[in-house]
């Protein structure tokens, strides 16, 4: 079976500005695939390239194995859900959903039948005659989904469609989107800057930064096994400590840092002498008994109690801030602001990555 979407050496430039650089990717049929990155990282450009509004400057986009060069968005087997939904305000809900069928010349009774089924699918069967402006945010969302599904695309493209909703509705729509995707079984390509959305919904995630796809993998992989410093710091909270590699022992290596020697896993096989960054998640931090040599010392700046965890912000001797999230189950009383603490982590929970030139 041909891949749903295949990007081969896709570059998009606007004048001197490189929006997407050398994107290579294969998205499988039926996959829920997300592009995650900060605003301006090129993810929307990439989505528009797949939907056909932008032609790649170099490289090829293939959908279902067919090269899409020169094929406009109106003739691609994709449907796009816009960030602002772009529903047609002068049409009723049913007319909105039926629009794609109408331009395809589907006869009226067939169209009505299909629209009715879609209205049931998105739980709006009572609202077909209403104007779009009469609907709530979540209902509009579902109309946009139904309108896109009506044309039976093989790939559904979603451009941050949940960003305008309030938190509660957003969380509800996450599971609803996921359920719809499972039910219709087509490929969803989802664009977001919200890691929570990407992690909870996606089969696989591509993390993008400055036009470059930095890492592709499932949620666990990008969270637990980041391969670049950007991914490590963008996905989830992470403490970052600079240093130089002094020794390698098997899968681990030791870094000489201003806070003393610290060890961590070395998945990208850094060499001794190389400049490196050590990443350790706040939840991997542990309090150490005072007077021991392990870990490093810091002054408590802020304690934020959040029920199951307590976030402690420390200032270490370099002036850098380090966060530790201490679980309630550890039974240790949280420190008071101003208190000096010793914290550390097990080397298996820390990760060493090469320091980029620019840092």
């Amino acid at each position, binding site marked *: 079976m041909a891949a749903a979407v295949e990007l081969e050496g896709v570059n998009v430039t606007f004048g001197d500005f490189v929006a997407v650089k050398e994107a290579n990717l294969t998205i499988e049929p039926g996959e829920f695939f997300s592009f995650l990155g900060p605003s301006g990282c090129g993810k929307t450009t990439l989505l528009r390239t797949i939907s056909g509004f932008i032609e790649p400057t170099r490289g090829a986009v293939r959908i279902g194995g067919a090269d899409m060069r020169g094929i406009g968005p109106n003739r691609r087997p994709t449907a796009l859900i816009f960030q602002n939904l*772009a529903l047609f305000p002068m049409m009723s809900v049913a007319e909105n959903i039926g629009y794609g069928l109408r331009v395809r010349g589907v006869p009226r009774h067939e169209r009505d039948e299909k629209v009715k089924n879609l209205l049931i699918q998105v739980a709006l069967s009572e609202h077909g005659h209403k104007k779009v402006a009469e609907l709530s945010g979540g209902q509009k969302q579902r109309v946009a989904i139904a309108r896109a599904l009506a044309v039976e695309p093989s790939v559904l493209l979603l451009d941050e469609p949940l960003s305008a909703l309030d938190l509660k509705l957003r969380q509800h729509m996450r599971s609803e989107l996921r359920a719809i995707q499972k039910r219709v079984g087509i490929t969803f390509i989802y664009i977001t800057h919200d890691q929570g959305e990407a992690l909870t919904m996606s089969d696989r995630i591509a993390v993008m930064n400055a036009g470059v796809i930095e890492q592709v993998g499932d949620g666990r992989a990008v969270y637990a096994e980041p391969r670049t410093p950007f991914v490590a710091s963008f996905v989830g909270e992470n403490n970052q400590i600079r240093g130089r590699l002094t020794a390698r022992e098997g899968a681990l290596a030791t870094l000489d840092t201003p806070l003393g020697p610290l060890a961590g896993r070395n998945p990208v096989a850094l060499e001794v002498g190389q400049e490196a960054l050590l990443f350790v998640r706040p939840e991997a931090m542990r309090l150490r008994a005072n007077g021991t040599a392990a870990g490093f010392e810091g002054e408590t700046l802020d304690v934020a109690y959040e029920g199951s965890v307590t976030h402690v912000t420390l200032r270490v001797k370099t002036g850098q801030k380090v966060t530790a999230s201490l679980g309630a189950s550890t039974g240790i009383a949280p420190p008071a602001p101003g208190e000096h603490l010793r914290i550390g982590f097990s080397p298996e929970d820390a990760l060493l990555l090469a320091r980029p030139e620019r840092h």
Partner: protein
Amino acid sequence: MNGNLAFVFGLPLAVVVFFFAFAAYERRAGVATGPGFFQRNGLAIGLYLVVAVGFWAFFIILLPQLAMVDMSFRPKLPPSQMGGPKDLYTLENYRYFLFGSTTSTEEWNWLHIKAFFLTIGASIAITLLNFAICYPLAFHMAQSATAARLRVLLLLLILPYWVNEILRAFAFRVLLSSGGIINQMLMGSGLTAEPVDFLGADVGLYAGLSYAYLLMMIFPLYNAIESLDKNQVEAARDLGAPWWHIHAFIVLPHAKPGIASGCTLVFMLTAGALAAPLVLGGPRTLWFTPIVYDRFYQAFNWPQGAAYAFILLVSCIVFVLVVLKAFRLSLGEITR
């Protein structure tokens, strides 16, 4: 004379009193809430607004028109007899439009009636032509032009209107005359042996009229299309719509108020245009406005001129309202 004075000052006063009473009623009934008009604008600006708008509406719009309507129902009299026993209300001026002079042998006043319907018909045609010319340009300006291109286009559109209307009309005349550049080019290229009589065939009149009110069409259209979310055009395209379908079912319905507003303006102005028909009209063409002009200044029959002008005004208003109704638009909408 005393009655007239009371009318001129009494009516505005009555209107002001009515509005104050109405505002007070609204406040009591709870329709209007929040700070009052003078509290919002301050006393000085509030008074200025009331006086300026009142003066404008009454002395500049209402009073002259009322004077014209009043005059149109009076007979033509020498000044000494005005207000005298012969100055009675009469339909004579309106009768003249339909049936002509009492000594005429014709059953109807065909000359004027024909000119009237030609004017209305040609104005409709010119309005449609204007729309066809302006829509693609307005769409490009509103949806696809870059900011720099838009500035250049706006400048190119506005600059020619610095030249006054009469001069522009005569320029068309020079261009289209039998010895003009266009005929010289046609004959030079061997397309025609004889010069084409563009002015006699009213090509000049229609071209001049279409050109004269182009801006009145393009700006309302531009405004209306500019407010259309670009994503809607893209969404329609993404759903498979061909370009004509997007224009017919997405852009035009959205721009309907702007289209109505532009067409109304162009139609009204074209039907009432004077300079272009006077300068560019062919020898066989009788536009209605020059006839009105002639009633005033050639026949020195002001009451009849007023009646003719009033007939044109009312017909145009009725026609526009009927068309708006047909397109399910209210007057409020076209001002959006």
